[in-house]
């Protein structure tokens, strides 16, 4: 898998979901503002249902639109609340001296790094607009300097690539637009590809896989020993095995077969939506 393929996956998801969301949003706005937006897909669906004598289904369609938009809004608001709470918590745990040291070491002017005084051994990247890398003192104590550099390089890839935002969007699309099944597949695979690409970046930067591999092994062992609930993230699929395979043989390309049934179903549903749209515009 390459960065281009991963970007393509993200863009396709964005286009599919964006088209549907835009239509739904326009429909709701037109309803609320009393506009007569004839080119709107939901409006066209209404007319078609009426033409087939299924006007009672209009309410189902309205319910679907309202449910999708409200569910999306709820997901966004709850994400914002949790992220704010988490940020506050991290500030309380902040290890001031080590945070300054790490920002100086990595020449970060915007305080991109935050070291927290915490026994758990993890490094994460969070934040949508200005992502930050959070490292625990537990991890610093566990790893050697070079291993830590490898982990930071891995996280830095996520930061530069704005993965927290992209992952959130994909997760939002796949959960709110469940009737487009391929979005779920994109969401799962995109996360795995990004992890492998972040490893690839860290290995290239250090010109060896020793440090990253060794760090991964240590974190896996400690994680298992402490029974740390790392499965907390809603990762339906695990990327660790793909990442180990990549480290064992960097020439092995991670390849997946697109689930044809899901892809076909998604294609048909999306095309139907587009046909309605084009028909309405014509």
């Amino acid at each position, binding site marked *: 898998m390459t960065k281009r393929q991963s970007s393509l996956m993200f863009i396709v998801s964005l286009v599919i979901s964006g088209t549907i969301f835009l239509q739904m949003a326009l429909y709701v706005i037109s309803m609320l503002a009393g506009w007569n937006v004839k080119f709107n897909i939901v409006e066209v669906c209404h007319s078609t249902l009426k033409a087939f004598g299924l006007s009672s289904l209009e309410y189902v369609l309205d319910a679907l639109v309202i449910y999708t938009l409200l569910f999306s809004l709820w997901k966004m608001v709850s994400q914002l609340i949790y992220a704010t709470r988490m940020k506050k918590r991290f500030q309380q745990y902040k290890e001031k001296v080590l945070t300054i040291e790490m920002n100086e070491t990595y020449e970060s002017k915007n305080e991109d790094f935050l070291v927290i005084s915490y026994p758990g051994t993890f490094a994460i990247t969070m934040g949508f607009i200005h992502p930050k890398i959070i490292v625990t003192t537990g991890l610093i104590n566990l790893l050697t300097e070079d291993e830590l550099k490898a*982990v930071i390089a891995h996280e830095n890839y996520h930061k530069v690539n704005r993965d927290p935002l992209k992952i959130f969007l994909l997760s939002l699309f796949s959960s709110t637009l469940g009737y487009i099944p391929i979005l779920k597949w994109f969401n799962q695979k995109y996360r795995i590809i990004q992890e492998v690409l972040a490893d690839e970046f860290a290995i290239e930067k250090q010109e060896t896989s020793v440090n990253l591999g060794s760090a991964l092994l240590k974190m896996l062992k400690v994680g298992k020993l402490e029974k740390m609930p790392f499965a907390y993230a809603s990762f339906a699929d695990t990327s660790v*095995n793909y990442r180990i395979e990549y480290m064992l043989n960097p020439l092995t390309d991670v390849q997946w077969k697109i689930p044809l049934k899901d892809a076909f179903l998604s294609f048909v549903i999306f095309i139907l939506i587009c046909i309605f749209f084009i028909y309405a515009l014509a």
Partner: protein
Amino acid sequence: MLIRKFKINESGLNRFFGPLEAKIMDILWNDVEMTIKDVQQVLDLEKVTNFNTVMTVMNRLVEKGILQKRVEGRSSLYKPVQTRAEFLSAQSKEMTNELMDEFGNVVVSHMLDALEDVDDDLVAKLEQKIKELKKDM
């Protein structure tokens, strides 16, 4: 035994206990079993402390499940339910779980995901490879 009021800005045992509670726990973790009088005498070496105050605090720790009380003859003996290491490990695990539960709802990118799905054979192969690479370095 979960400490509900975790004090983030404090350090050491003061993160989990009040100042006198922390001192009492520190004393009891250094001994086997002690009476209230024994504890009070040790506390007095640093600062004179009222017997009733020590008794109230120690009985509160029993109620919280942190100390256990045993009657022998006319005196009551107190000892911690867990060793210091067990207590700190349990609390730090609890804190981590709490933090991770909150994480569950926040989208982040992180080094490791679902650990239970890790293929042990692959881990063994990676271990072998890292060993070989380290030898060559």
